[in-house]
C-alpha cells in the first residue's frame, strides 16, 4: 500500500493504461504541453508524445465529438473537459450522441471512451465555474457516471472506465486532488456501478459520494464523540446506481441522511430517497433528510459561497433530526 493523493491516483491510472494499451490516448484543453490545468497529465506529453496526448482548441463539442468518432474506430480516448461546467458546451455530444449511439444503431456502434470532468464548488470561481451538475448526466440511460471520493477508488474506477466499452463520465472534484489515501500496490480495478460502505456504523446511514464523503466523514467523527455511530455508504457510481449496500444499511439503521454537493431539487438525494421509500418503506423510522447545496447560483464572495455549500454542521444537524 502506498499513500498518495487523488491527483497521483488518477494520473497513475492514466499512465499505466497508456503504457498497457497503445489505443488509449488523451485529448483536451492544455492536457499536453501545459501538463493539464490540474496537473493530472504532467509529464505525459514528454513521455507519450503529441499524438497520444493531444492538445485541442477550446472547443468542447469538437473534443467530445472527436472522442466519440475515434472511439467508434476502436480507439480508447480519454477526453478531458477542463471543468464539468464546460460540458454544457458539449451537452449534445455527451447525452445525444455518446449516450445513444450504441442503442440507436442496435449495438453496431461501440464507444469505449472516458470523459474526465472536474467539478465542484468552494474555490470562489463564481456561478459559472463552480457547479456540481452530476445528477443531470446521471439522468441519461446509455451513459455511465462515476464520481470517486478516495484515491483508491479514483485509481480503480479510472482503470475500469478506460477498459469499459461504454462511454463513462468520470467526475473529479477539484478540492479533492490534494487528499491523500492508501492505494493498493500493483494493477487493480474498481468495478463501475458498485456502492461501498466506507465507514461501518449502526445508528444512522449517510449516503453520499465524491467531496461530500469527506464532509460526511468529518461529521461522523464529531458525532462519534457524542456516541452516535454513523454508517457511510459511498455511491461511487451514479449510473448504474447500486442501491444494494444502501438498502442493506438502511434496513439495519432505519434512518438515512443523503449528502450531495449539487442542488437538492431533482438531485441524487431525491433519487436515493425515493428508492429507499419504494424498496424499504417498512423499515423507515424517520423521514429521510437531504443535505444539499442551497438553491442559488454559487456566489463569488467566500462567506456567501460557504453558506450555500453543504457544511459539516449541516450534516450533523440532519443526522440529529433523523435520530
Amino acid at each position, binding site marked *: 500500500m502506498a499513500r498518495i493523493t487523488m491527483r497521483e491516483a488518477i494520473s497513475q491510472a492514466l499512465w499505466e493504461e497508456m503504457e498497457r494499451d497503445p489505443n488509449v*490516448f488523451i485529448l483536451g484543453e492544455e492536457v499536453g504541453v501545459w501538463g493539464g490545468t490540474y496537473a493530472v497529465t504532467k509529464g505525459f506529453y514528454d513521455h507519450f508524445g503529441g*499524438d497520444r496526448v*493531444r492538445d*485541442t*482548441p477550446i*472547443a468542447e*463539442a*469538437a473534443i*467530445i*465529438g*472527436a*472522442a*466519440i*468518432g*475515434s*472511439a*467508434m*474506430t*476502436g*480507439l480508447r*480516448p480519454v477526453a478531458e473537459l477542463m471543468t464539468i461546467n464546460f460540458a454544457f458546451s458539449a451537452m*449534445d*455530444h455527451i447525452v*445525444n*450522441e455518446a449516450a445513444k449511439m*450504441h*442503442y*440507436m*444503431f*442496435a*449495438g*453496431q*456502434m*461501440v464507444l469505449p471512451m472516458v470523459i474526465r470532468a472536474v467539478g465542484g464548488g468552494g474555490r470562489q470561481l463564481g456561478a459559472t465555474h463552480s457547479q456540481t451538475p452530476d445528477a443531470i448526466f446521471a439522468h441519461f*440511460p*446509455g451513459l*455511465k457516471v462515476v464520481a470517486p471520493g478516495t484515491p483508491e477508488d479514483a485509481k480503480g474506477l479510472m482503470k475500469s472506465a478506460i477498459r*469499459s*466499452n*461504454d462511454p463513462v463520465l468520470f467526475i473529479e472534484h477539484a478540492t479533492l486532488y490534494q487528499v491523500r489515501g492508501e492505494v493498493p500496490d500493483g494493477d487493480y480495478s474498481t468495478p463501475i456501478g458498485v456502492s461501498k460502505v466506507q465507514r461501518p456504523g449502526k445508528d444512522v446511514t449517510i449516503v453520499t459520494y465524491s467531496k461530500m464523503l469527506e464532509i460526511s466523514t468529518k461529521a461522523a467523527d464529531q458525532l462519534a464523540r457524542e456516541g452516535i455511530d454513523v454508517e457511510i455508504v459511498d455511491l461511487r457510481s451514479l449510473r448504474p446506481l447500486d442501491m444494494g449496500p444502501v438498502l442493506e444499511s438502511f434496513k439495519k439503521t432505519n434512518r438515512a441522511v443523503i449528502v450531495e454537493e449539487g442542488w437538492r431539487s431533482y438531485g441524487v438525494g431525491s433519487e436515493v430517497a425515493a428508492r429507499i421509500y419504494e424498496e424499504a418503506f417498512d423499515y423507515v423510522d424517520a423521514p429521510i433528510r437531504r443535505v444539499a447545496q442551497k438553491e442559488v447560483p454559487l456566489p463569488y464572495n467566500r462567506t456567501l459561497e460557504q453558506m450555500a455549500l453543504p457544511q459539516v454542521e449541516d450534516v450533523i444537524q440532519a443526522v440529529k433530526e433523523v435520530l
Partner: protein
Amino acid sequence: MDKEEYLKLYYEMVLIRLVEEQAAQLYQQGKIGGFLHLYIGQEAVSTGLISARKPQDRVITAYRDHGVAINCGLSAEEVVAELLGKVTGCSQGKGGSMHMADVKKNFWGGHAIVGAHLPIASGLALGDKYKGTDGVTICMFGDGATNIGYFHEALNLSQVWKLPVLWVCENNQYGMGTAVERASAVSEIRQKAEGYGIPNGRVDGMNVLEVRRAAEDALNYLRTGQGPYFMEIMTYRFRGHSMGDPERYRQSEEVKCWQENDPIGIYHKYLVDEKIATAAELRAIDSRVADEVDAAVKFAESSPEPAPEALFEHIYVEQ
C-alpha cells in the same frame, strides 16, 4: 469507367428514387412513423460521391440518409424494413428513417441533430490517422448545418490536426424552409472553408459524373495526407423538407424548373447520347429496380416486429 460501372450509377439512382417514392406512399398509409426526409432530386450527389470511395473509406451523413445507405451497399430490404421499424431493418427497428447504419459496410450512420456528426467525423478520421491506415472519412451535411457551431469547431479541428476528412456540403438551397441567403452570411458555402484554409470546390450535383470526378480528385488529395478538403455540391430536393411540408417558402415554378434538371433524366440522356447504353437497356434496369423495390416492401411488411426484450438491449455493451 467500363459500361458496367456506368450502369451501376444509373441503377443506384433509380433504386433510390423508387425506394423514396415507395416510402412516401408507405408514410401516407401510416406505416412509417416519425419524420421522413426524402432524397428525391439529390440522388446524383451521394451516388457520384460514394462511387468514388474505396472500401476502407468511411461515410457518415445527416438524417436524409436513405439514399446514402443504398449507395453504401445496404439493400432496399434493410432500408425499407428500418422505415417500418422491423427487426430486419439495418438498425433493427431502433433507429428509424434518420438513423440507418451498417458499420460493416463502413456506413457510420445517419445522424439527426443538425451538424452534430461533423465533430464525430473528425474523430473517425482521427482514428484512421492515429492507426496509420489510408482510409478517409466522407462527411455529408446540408447547407443548414454550416451555420451551427459544430460545423466550425469540426472544420477548424480537421485542419489543425490535418485529418483526412472530405467535407461535403449538399447545398439543396434550403435549410428546412429557410433559403440559404436568409440563413447564411455567405450564400456560396464553400467560402466558409476558405476561412479555415481548407482547399475547396463547387460542383454541379445534378450531374452524377461530375460529382464522381470531383470526388475522385478530392479523395486523391486526402490520401496525400495534407489534411481535409471541402466540396460544395449544388443540388435541389424535389419534395418537401419532410412529409407534411406545406412548401410555402418556394414557388412551384422553381421546383418545376429544377425538376426539368432531373439528375436521373440528365444521366439517362447522357448514356443514350454517348451510346453507352440503349434506352431499352435502361428500361430493363428501371423494371428490375421496380421489382426489387416491390420485393423489399413485401419483405419489410412480412418481417417481424422487434421482440419485447429488444427494449432493454444495447443500452450498454456491459449491462
